[in-house]
């Protein structure tokens, strides 16, 4: 245990995701030895992000205004909505430059064992966006793990009566890998999701 303020800093850092007690201690001592202007810049960035960033009223993505950059962009196709778990997934999909529609950020995945049910996610807001019939395709891009799959299953079932096209991102072999190293589940999914080669 260290004295007062140093220990407070270690404790606070230790509450960050992925930071264990050892790393917290290392970061704390790095900060102690760092240049005061660097530390002020870090502190400023932390308070600014809380003061300025909010969540888009339409899609739930992080935004600086009432609506996020994507929702404000008139060139983005409003008829296609891609559903993701977190804002960081929006960033990942934007990097592909493949998608020209809009997003909907759920804020997580259904996980009964962690006490997260459908009502804890932004599902009601999604249904609100689908209500007027202007959306024709819903792309379910939740994580390809169990909870992400369960969330996609739940959403697909829920929007089924609305009659719009519902698609799920393909799962399968990682590009650049060897087939023999794929596990059974992934390889099985790759078979299910195989596509016609039209040459």
């Amino acid at each position, binding site marked *: 245990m260290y004295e007062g303020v140093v220990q407070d800093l270690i404790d606070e850092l230790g509450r960050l*995701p992925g930071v264990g007690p050892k790393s917290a201690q290392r970061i704390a001592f790095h900060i102690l030895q760092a240049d005061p202007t660097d530390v002020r810049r870090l502190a400023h960035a932390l308070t600014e992000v809380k003061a300025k960033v909010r969540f888009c009223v339409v899609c739930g993505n992080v935004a600086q205004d009432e609506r996020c950059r994507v929702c404000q962009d008139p060139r983005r196709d409003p008829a296609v909505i891609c559903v993701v778990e977190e804002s960081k997934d929006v960033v990942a999909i934007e990097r592909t430059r493949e998608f020209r529609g809009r997003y909907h950020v759920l804020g997580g995945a259904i996980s*009964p*064992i962690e006490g997260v049910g459908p009502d804890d996610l932004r599902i009601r807001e999604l249904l609100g966006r689908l209500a007027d019939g202007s959306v024709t395709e819903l792309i379910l891009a939740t994580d390809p793990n169990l909870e992400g799959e369960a969330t996609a299953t739940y959403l697909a079932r829920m929007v089924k009566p609305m009659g719009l096209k519902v698609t799920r991102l393909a799962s399968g072999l990682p590009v650049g890998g060897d087939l023999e190293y794929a*596990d059974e*589940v*992934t390889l099985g999914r790759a078979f299910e999701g195989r596509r016609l080669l039209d040459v």
Partner: protein
Amino acid sequence: MSLFRDDGVVLRTQKLGEADRIITLLTRQHGRVRAVARGVRRTKSKFGARLEPFSHVDVQFFARGSELLGRGLPLCTQVETIAPHGGEIVGDYQRYTAGTAMLETAERFTDSEGVPAVQQYLLLVGALRTLAAGTHEPRLVLDAFLLRSLAVNGYAPSFDDCARCGLPGPNRFFSVASGGTVCGDCRPPGSVVPSPESLELLGALLAGDWATADACEPRFSREGSGMVAAYLQWHLERGLRSLRYVEK
């Protein structure tokens, strides 16, 4: 340093650091075990999807000491799939919520790590197989699993004879605190009078009589589920989180 090999069902996974996970398994020989799977969250991990909840796997563990548990968490070094289950369960939301409640129940009934719980393990493996096959209503498969889990842990409820004095059934009254059906003389205040069909269903689920269970009308199976939930909550210190998300 030693290597251990065991079969197990993945109950839960938790993120650890950048790319690792702590995997909680119910194993055949070592009961509940927590182990670290390094790099499992990377897309090119050698574990792939093998260590997702519901997976029935054959695992090789690496432990720092001479025992599997004791000196820190063991590492998962090799994993082979026995039955993936996840795909069939997760593609149906009712199965998913029922299955999640099974995993949480199995975890709660095995609170001491490393203590063998073979019967609980076999019950879970069987129940997940039945759930994945889709041959019975998910809620019935769950209720059967919950009742039998209570039984193998020493809390077998009675649905026929009086749980207090042993008066042969059928008995009309039901009391969670008394251990099931009770006779008119033994019934404590607060006993309920469920329909005989619900009691018959619960007896059938406990005994594995699927023909009777599958033929039960939904209103009675709903009442039965409520009784099972109440009975389970009474015997577990804290309520099950996932039970309230189970779809009827």
